[in-house]
């Protein structure tokens, strides 16, 4: 396979074409440069230094448990069979060759034979099978994504069959939940959520809940000697303190800083700021079951009140790229120009629209009423950097067009959303964590689906989602994904505000760690301080 600037879909297309021609695709690791893990190590045990990594959101480490796999991958404890490269293309990591059966139902993977778990056991086919079976047993999301029928292992090869053709299986195997761990080690003797046994360059030495994790290099890591003597991941749950600690030199790298600090660190020679556009989109959930939000015209007016450009440039200090689509423009299904029916920023137009639909300020308090009832919206959000700011800006913007709104910030928003206890929720969503649009679109727009908190339901969308789930053709997938977004944004069921550039600050002289477009690759074997 050629190494070029292809999207993941280019690759998938190629795969499917090749597969359909009945040619076995051999994939050697040296053909594609893995993004992170299997780097030629420069670690010299004599001169290695301790490395301290400050993070805003500290995670537990059992990959199968909710989103904890992000931590497992981020802290270099575990690895997935495949990774996404900077172009969100799937590249093999723990796998040497893979092929798809003619019926599109079975993938056969040939595993590397030099990979061992932290406890010294070899990562063979049975281990991978056990790891994946443990995953689908514990994680509903993974089970829904993978659609596993059966796994058979034989030596260093493993055959994964799915219940239906699953074009995104390899993408799903890139998801942090699919991090390969030694399932047999989860025998209850230690808390697997704190001390998972993975294949990554670092082993958890001690884990203090909510405080820090101390990691030791894995002596016989397959990718060479890890470059740091130890890695300490510190939980610094206060963004401002995180910034101060970074400034004060107490940590070597910081992730999760407030965007306000971009200039602070960017203008300081002692630090390196690495930025990467990610697939995280800041978006608004509208609760379509609530009185005013149920009205499409009303929603349209709300959308027109939103000044996406300023949000990205001011609230996020330039780290937000305004968007009409849920996906970054670099992706074929993230083309803003195709989102024709998305209302532009036009507060005056919004006022007129509202006035024309029976929203009038009848009692003269500066806020609109409909049929004598005051329009009041409940805005909710959670503490992720940028969201409270966005929501408060929205509150002010709504006030400008005469809509009263209350603001509430929660630490954990999902319960509030699930209960439908909101009108508008600002949310930051990683739309293509595994390089494919299906999961996000399905979750948020399919009738009755898990993250469809606004209770949006459109049979046309449901039909398209179904088609998308079975489609292996790249262009058609992109077209369907685009179509779904057109319908959804046309219905004003969601408003996608901007895409986020994530950034990471490191001390000068720190290497092997930087902001990746894939937000869960952080600590690697190369991460070290000079």
């Amino acid at each position, binding site marked *: 396979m050629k190494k070029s600037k292809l999207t993941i879909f280019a690759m998938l297309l190629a795969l499917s074409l090749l597969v359909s021609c009945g040619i076995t695709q051999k994939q050697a690791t040296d053909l594609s440069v893995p993004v992170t893990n299997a780097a030629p190590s420069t670690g010299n045990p004599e001169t290695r230094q301790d490395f301290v990594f400050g993070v805003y959101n500290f995670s537990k480490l059992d990959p199968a448990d909710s989103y904890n796999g992000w931590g497992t991958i981020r802290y270099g404890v575990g690895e997935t069979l495949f990774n996404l490269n900077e172009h969100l293309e799937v590249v093999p990591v723990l796998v040497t060759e893979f092929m798809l059966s003619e019926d599109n139902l079975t993938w056969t993977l040939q595993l590397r034979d030099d990979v061992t778990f932290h406890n010294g056991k070899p990562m063979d086919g049975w281990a991978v099978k056990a790891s994946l079976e443990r995953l689908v047993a514990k994680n509903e999301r993974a089970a829904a994504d993978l659609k596993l029928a059966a796994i058979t292992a034989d030596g260093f090869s493993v055959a994964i069959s799915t219940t239906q053709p699953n074009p995104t299986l390899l993408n799903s195997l890139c998801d942090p939940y699919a991090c390969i761990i030694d399932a047999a080690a989860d025998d209850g003797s230690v808390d697997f959520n704190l001390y998972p046994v993975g294949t990554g360059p670092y082993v958890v030495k001690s884990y203090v809940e909510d405080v820090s994790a101390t990691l030791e290099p894995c002596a016989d890591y397959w990718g060479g000697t890890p470059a740091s003597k130890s890695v300490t991941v510190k939980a610094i749950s206060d963004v401002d303190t995180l910034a101060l600690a970074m400034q004060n030199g107490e940590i070597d790298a910081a992730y999760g800083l407030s965007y306000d*600090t971009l200039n602070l660190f960017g203008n300081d020679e002692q630090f390196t700021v690495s930025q990467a556009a990610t697939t995280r989109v800041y978006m608004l959930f509208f609760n379509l079951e609530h009185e005013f939000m149920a009205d499409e015209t009303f929603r349209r007016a709300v959308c027109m009140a939103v000044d996406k450009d300023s949000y990205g440039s*001011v609230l996020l200090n330039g780290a937000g790229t305004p968007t009409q689509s849920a996906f970054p423009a670099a992706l074929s299904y993230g083309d803003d120009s195709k989102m024709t029916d998305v209302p532009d920023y036009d507060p005056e137009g919004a006022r007129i629209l509202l006035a024309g639909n029976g929203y009038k300020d009848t009692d003269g308090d500066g806020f609109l009423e409909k049929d004598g009832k005051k329009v009041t919206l409940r805005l909710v959000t959670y503490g992720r950097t940028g969201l409270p700011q966005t929501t408060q800006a929205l509150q*002010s913007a709504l006030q400008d067009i005469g809509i009263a709104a209350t603001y*509430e910030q929660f630490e954990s928003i999902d319960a509030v959303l699930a209960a439908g206890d909101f009108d508008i929720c600002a949310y930051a969503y990683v739309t293509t964590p595994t390089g494919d649009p299906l999961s996000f679109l399905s979750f948020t727009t399919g009738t009755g689906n898990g993250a469809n908190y606004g209770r949006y339901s459109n049979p046309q969308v449901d039909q398209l989602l179904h088609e998308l789930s079975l489609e292996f053709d790249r262009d058609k997938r992109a077209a369907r994904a685009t179509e779904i977004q057109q319908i959804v944004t046309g219905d004003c069921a969601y408003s996608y505000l901007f895409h986020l550039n994530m950034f990471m600050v490191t001390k000068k002289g720190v290497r092997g760690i930087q902001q990746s477009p894939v937000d869960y690759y952080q600590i690697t074997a190369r991460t070290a301080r000079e």
Partner: protein
Amino acid sequence: MKGPVYDARIRYTFLLVLTLAFLFLSILAPLFMPNDPNHASLSDAKQAPSAVYPWGTDWLGRCVLSRVLAGAPVSIFSALVIVGLTLMVGSAVGIACGYWGGKVDSILMRIVDIFLAFPGMVLALAVAGMLGKGLNNAVLALVATGWPTYARLMRGQVLTLKEENFVHAAKLNGQTTVSILFLHILPNALRPVVVTASLSIGGTILSLAGLSFLGLGPQPPLAEWGSMLADGRGLMQQHPWIVLYPGLAILMTSILFNLLGDSVRDVLDPHDSRNLFQKVKRKRIP
């Protein structure tokens, strides 16, 4: 007559006038606001002080001066309401205990003991936390924390005053219990209570700001000094005016009320201010 008491009275009058003026101004503060305190003008965000925004703008492009002014009534009057409610609830309980004694006293005092068993802000955190965020709950939380002190104080006062001869004399005059209570006991008992209350206003402002800082106070977009400080904390280095002015507002207000409280005490509770370590100036005529 000149002397320490005289000085205290002058100081008290001065501070009282200053405080009243301050209160008056904070009521009128909305009139002086150069801009809408809640209006976010993103294009003007994080601007340094200028003619349009005398104290600059915050991260959302809101006028800091307007927000500090808008926050004045919230911070100050909430604190006054808290102290007032605390005083009333506490005093009512204290009077009931002190005057009727017996079962009423022992039951109420047990309740007071229970409330006093919660250290410092713990009860406030619990009340605000359990009942949810917001100004009302924050006020309720601080009242719940504060009233037992006044109950104890008032009870002690009433118990002492009940045995004063002038109360006996009033009793022998044939006055009713209620009239004795309201004509003689209460007015005299109020003095230390008022001193305590006036000393506690400054602290209450700080406590409220503390709750706000923790996010348990008034919710956005309502301007409140503590939450402005919490909000703008990350910009402290780059755009200091965002935290400087609300911080100064808290400091100044709390200093003003603390000074007033001190001087109320000096006037109502004058104490001899000489001791053995005082050098006595000696003017000897040879």
